């Protein structure tokens, strides 16, 4: 009997396939395509304390084996999430991960505090809150909204420490591939008491409209994701997994069962699937089924047998 189970900071997941923030909304849009009960978890659209309307101008461009986005954290804000979106997500039989960004330390702290307090209250009433907090210090698409906290370890440390002090929710920190020293960043998260790190967010990238002679994006740069980044993301996950003992959630261009296996062999406890949801709306369930099949064919009974086997 194969087991796909895994565990992130005390949160048991039925399998390692998590839908990545920003590609899965709050779960509603995929209900017609994917039974959420087949998934390991869903990381919700990146929240900020206050609502954001996102970036103007072109928000998506396709590139070789990838896409660039400049959505800019359009979201209803934490309060509206708790009121309108979480009640729906709570009906889904999968781990709920709240992804939280911010423009400054106060916003991160207040957002995290609200999510934690709400979850505590819900649980006291026998209802469901969020299962985990994913701290986004890596969104490249807003000048103030994450990434400036995700470049230098000391800046990030201050955010992680402050958030840690106001939440007892399992804390996962989502890292940017643009970090000056990614391994040092991950080690810092572990030192500051994070239960997990997830990596990588999109790569800061660019597209120029040569006829208009300007960047294709209003914000000049945009976030590159998709299969194009997978080999680099995999290397980064491998490096980080070697340096920390907390779970590493690997992501970056995963678009097949084989890709997931690679990340797990590189040391990932679980994986997140992002861009590929746009390519195939049913990919969540298909990857879980495919993983199960692969393990049976390869006579792998538990992911422990293959996790982190690449030295």
């Amino acid at each position: 009997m194969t087991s796909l189970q895994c565990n992130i900071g005390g949160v048991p997941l039925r399998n390692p396939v998590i839908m990545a923030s920003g590609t899965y909304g709050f779960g509603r849009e995929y209900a017609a395509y994917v039974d959420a009960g087949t998934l390991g978890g869903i990381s919700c659209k990146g929240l900020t304390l206050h609502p954001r309307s996102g970036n103007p101008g072109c928000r998506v461009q396709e590139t070789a084996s990838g896409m660039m986005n400049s959505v800019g954290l359009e979201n209803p804000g934490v309060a509206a999430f708790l009121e309108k979106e979480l009640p729906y997500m709570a009906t889904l039989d999968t781990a709920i991960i709240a992804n939280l960004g911010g423009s400054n330390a106060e916003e991160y702290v207040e957002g995290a505090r609200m999510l934690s307090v709400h979850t505590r209250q819900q649980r006291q009433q026998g209802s469901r809150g969020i299962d985990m907090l994913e701290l986004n210090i890596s969104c490249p698409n807003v000048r103030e909204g994450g990434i400036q906290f995700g470049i230098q370890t000391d800046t990030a440390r201050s955010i992680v420490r402050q958030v840690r002090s106001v939440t007892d929710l399992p804390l996962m920190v989502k890292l940017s591939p643009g970090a000056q020293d990614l391994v040092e960043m991950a080690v810092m998260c572990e030192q500051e008491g994070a239960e997990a790190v997830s990596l990588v967010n999109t790569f800061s990238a660019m597209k120029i409209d040569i006829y208009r002679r300007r960047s294709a994006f209003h914000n000049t740069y945009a976030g590159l994701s998709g299969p194009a980044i997978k080999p680099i993301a995999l290397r980064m996950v491998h490096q980080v997994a070697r340096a920390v003992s907390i779970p590493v959630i690997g992501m970056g261009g995963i678009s097949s069962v084989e890709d997931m296996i690679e990340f797990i062999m590189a040391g990932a406890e679980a994986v997140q699937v992002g861009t590929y949801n746009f390519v195939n709306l049913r990919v969540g369930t298909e990857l879980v089924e495919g993983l199960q099949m692969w393990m049976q064919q390869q006579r792998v009974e538990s992911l422990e047998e293959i996790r982190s086997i690449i030295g």
Partner: protein
Amino acid sequence: MTRIISNEQIAPDVFVMKIAGSYKGRMGQFYMLRADDGYRGDSYPLLSRPLSIHDRGDDYIAFLYRVHGRGTAILSRMTAGQQVLLEGPFGNGFPVLDDPGRIALVGGGMGTAPLLLAARHYAQADIYLGFSGDTFGVESLRQAVESDTRVKVMNSRYKSILELLEPGWYDTILACGPAGMLKALAECTAAANEAALHDGEGYPASTHLYISTEKHMACGIGACLTCTVQTTSGNRRTCVEGPVFAAEEVDWNDLTTV
């Protein structure tokens, strides 16, 4: 299965792809479509292309499209018997009105693509088509409304479809085309709605203009938020709350910014 029946070039860079099968979809709704090369699809193009439903029957669905970039170029090279991947129908589509009153359909260039289903639904409509080069799809629209005289065509690089059309004369206008054309039409319609023109004999009290918009998008189902349009009631997703909006709702500055 999603087998191509035909993929016919009807003008320079303009194709009609007909796909076998029974598909749902109302006028103005769209599908996400890309070539199924049998590979897992992690090379270019990664994303599907949103194409509005051009025509639909019991055993086929058809898409009228222009080769714009590499994704549509790949589509254009596909031949009968090959497979495409299709998801849909998506979007709200043109409004189904019990009493549209006097109605016009206005299409500019590729904006004629979704008008065929609209013309079948509103067979009493007058139709205005603008092209800047080669015309296409005109004959099928004439057949749909069973009239030659009610289909008016402007084919010019310099003249606007608005030279043929008096928006204030209509109760309802459904339009699809380049953002610049839609904006001009919206301004003209708004002016007519404000002017005393509507007090004239035979003119309706006001004109309701609905426009079908176009934005780059990734998922088609409302999750990625890349296709949002700024409206009077905040951001709206082209793929879910659109692509058809009441003209007075949208922020034209946003729509005409590429």
